[in-house]
């Protein structure tokens, strides 16, 4: 198929869920050999639209045209057979199987009925890998691969099915900078093959780096569609959020001078070494560094989620022995973990139950819960943090990402925490909710709470911290005051710090 030919057209798509219109009047045109960026806040309808295109939802209003012919996919398999593949955000390979086995799962080349031609499978896989310039061994087990490599396998799976449209949902969210550049090189190759790509990402600089066309969704409506080069980044953001976002970061209150947390020589074998830092009352200290540098691990050790082998943790002048989160919480330390669903809340239980969980001591006498106090306090904190839900009996798992995060914060703010550790507090939540959380962090600091903030997005750490600790390879390699800290400086320190360690 020649470049720029229309492969798929979605026309006037409408999708309703009970009580909500998820999509309305949405059009999308995908052309051969072009990358179409789909942008919008969480809940804008991107995923819903892609689920219609990839056959997950069979009931919707409007029309899907493939090569100009109107059709309706019955289910995912149907869409896949007709050339539309999706590389989901969360990859689910079978870790004990090889690359070749995963790629040909369910359609293995056969010698004769029932007998798999393993040599042929291996050879075909090698060819596909080579066509994208990759030289992995087809017989490597999936669990040995990095996230980026698994993603490539998923993409190859799509190509091997002769897919003409590949949907990539947040493909770079777990990739390093280098891996992202490799992915982009491979996307270029896919474009050469005439494949149309839908690229969903929150990271606008990446969208500009790889996209040709762009469609903006907001609250289920199509706001704009056109060539990416015709629209500036500021304008794009404005269209996504529906307002000009000038300053999503609030002014920070003045930090206190009284030391709250002092960490000295904290080490954990092969993870981090000799880490020392201080947090004052009312101060926000940011941890900057690349993913995997040890930022989260240090924070988890302070909170007791991971063990440390040596070092001292002093809180309010008292040396603590922290072996579990229980010890940390007893000493007024709380943590909002990076992986919300795994550590943050119990999805099958209500908002109320989740808020009671770490606060049983406050809400009970001799082990018996005080129902009245619970209801009053929970209602109160949910209002304060504007957790949006039908009632406090709503299941935590059914809330949106932003509200889940506010719930996690609520459960800690019911108690008198003195130190709050926030690991990626705004990951995966939309701009509006982000802004609310930033404001909350500033308010907490103003009330004298010390905050340890970890964030991958550099502007976030730099704008929200009084002081920044730069972390590389499990070491703190430097400290910058708010005035000194710029993205350039931090990056330079990270790069030079690496050199130091290489020696």
């Amino acid at each position, binding site marked *: 198929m020649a470049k720029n030919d229309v492969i798929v057209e979605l026309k006037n798509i409408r999708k309703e869920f009970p009580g909500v219109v998820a999509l309305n009047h949405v059009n999308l045109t995908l052309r051969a050999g072009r990358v179409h960026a789909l942008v919008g806040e969480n809940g804008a309808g991107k995923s819903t639209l892609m689920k219609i295109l990839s056959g997950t939802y069979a009931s919707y209003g409007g029309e899907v045209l493939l090569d100009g012919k109107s059709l309706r996919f019955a289910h995912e398999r149907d869409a896949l057979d007709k050339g539309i593949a999706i590389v989901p955000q969360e990859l689910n390979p079978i870790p004990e199987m090889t690359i070749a086995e995963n790629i040909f799962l369910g359609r293995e080349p056969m010698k004769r009925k029932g007998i798999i031609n393993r040599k042929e499978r291996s050879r075909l896989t090698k060819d596909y890998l080579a066509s994208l310039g990759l030289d992995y061994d087809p017989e490597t087990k999936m669990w040995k691969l990095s996230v980026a490599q698994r993603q490539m396998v998923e993409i190859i799976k799509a190509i091997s099915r002769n897919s003409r449209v590949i949907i990539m949902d947040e493909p770079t969210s777990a990739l390093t900078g280098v891996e992202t550049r490799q992915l982009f090189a491979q996307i270029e190759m896919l474009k050469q093959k005439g494949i149309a790509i839908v690229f969903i990402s929150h990271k606008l600089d990446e969208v500009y780096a790889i996209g040709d066309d762009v469609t903006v969704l907001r609250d289920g409506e199509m706001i704009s569609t056109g060539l990416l080069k015709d629209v500036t980044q500021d304008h794009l953001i404005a269209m996504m959020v529906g307002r000009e976002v000038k300053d999503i970061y609030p002014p920070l209150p003045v930090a206190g001078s009284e030391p709250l947390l002092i960490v000295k020589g904290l080490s954990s074998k092969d993870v981090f070494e000799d880490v020392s830092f201080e947090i004052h009352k009312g101060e926000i200290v940011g941890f900057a560094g690349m993913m995997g540098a040890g930022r989260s691990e240090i924070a988890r050790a302070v909170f007791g989620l991971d063990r440390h082998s040596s070092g001292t943790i002093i809180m309010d002048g008292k040396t603590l022995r922290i072996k*579990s989160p229980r010890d940390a919480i007893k000493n007024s330390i709380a943590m909002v973990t990076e992986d919300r669903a795994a550590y943050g809340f*119990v999805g099958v*239980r209500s908002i109320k139950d989740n808020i009671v969980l770490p606060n049983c001591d406050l809400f009970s006498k001799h082990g018996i819960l005080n129902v009245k106090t619970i209801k009053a306090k929970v209602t109160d904190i949910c209002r304060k943090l504007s957790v949006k839900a039908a009632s406090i009996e709503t299941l935590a798992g059914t809330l949106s990402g932003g509200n889940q995060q506010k719930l996690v914060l609520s459960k800690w703010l019911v108690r008198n925490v003195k130190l709050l550790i926030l690991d990626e507090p705004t990951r995966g939540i939309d701009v509006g909710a982000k802004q609310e959380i930033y404001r909350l962090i500033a308010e907490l600091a103003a009330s004298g709470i010390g905050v340890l903030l970890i964030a991958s997005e550099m502007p976030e750490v730099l704008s929200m911290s009084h002081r920044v600790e730069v972390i590389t390879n499990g070491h703190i390699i430097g400290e910058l005051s708010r005035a000194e800290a710029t993205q350039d400086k931090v990056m330079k320190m990270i790069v030079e710090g690496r050199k130091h360690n290489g020696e």
Partner: protein
Amino acid sequence: MESNKKQISIASIYRKYGIFLILVLLFVTSAIINSNFLKSQNLINILKQISVVTIIACGETMLIVSGMIDLSAGLVCTMSACFSAGVLASTGSILLTFVVGIGLGMSAGWLNGFLVTRYKLQPFIATLAMTNIAAGITQIYTNGQAVGGVEKIRFLGQGSIIGIPMPVIVMLLAVGAIAYLMKATTLGVHIYSIGGNEKAAIASGINVNRSKRIIFTVSGALVGLAGVVLMSRLMSGQPSVGAGYEFDAITAVIVGGTSFTGGIGTVTGALIGSIIVGLINNILNLLHVSTQYQLIVKGLLIAGAVIIDVKTKANKKSA
């Protein structure tokens, strides 16, 4: 604030009221099919028959909701029944009978919990081991013979208060106590959160190991109590009665709407589940359906309950 109510699916209605509706439906059909069914003696008999298993089911509910299970309940119940019979026969003390019966159950439960928390054994494996240990101890103690001489316990097995048999009263007290424990105490919060998301419970400062040991121990106490009630109903310690009670109890729990993946379920549900199983057995008996067929019906019931459980989850995901 009420908008969510509109989205309640059939599956979630079942989760909330369904088993109760099924119970009513069963009741009405049974009454129509067989005129003997509604006789009060028959109804009271049903409750009496399910009493031992339901007491065990109270413990299994706590365990299953917190993501665990106890396969040893049946044979530990037997062990408690035989030992408490022996104690009663030799000392004549009702108090000691209860202390030994319940104490043995508690010890077995605590040991299960110890294996699970200290050595990280899967509850399935730990309690499987306990099953064999309990069976062995019972055989050694009884030599395969029934333990008699327990006339003094007659009040428990045969007695009644205002027409309600004692075993039924004990069962209702157990259900009430565990329902309160799961709903109104901090241990209840721990039970639900450990089963719903153990990591989140740990990160919230819960001493998960301690809670698990308590859950196993409380459940063991109930198993021991069930053993004493069983002994009083049989008027002897029978080394061959009790095996398989754990599965009857688990059946009641699952039919009662408790999710096998943890975090969801109630002990009142287990009671209703137990009554449903009892009712079905009863009506099949009245209709002279043989026990072989009754087993098949019970099997279908379990499968049906789990299908609904799975459907409920699937609905939640797509919402």
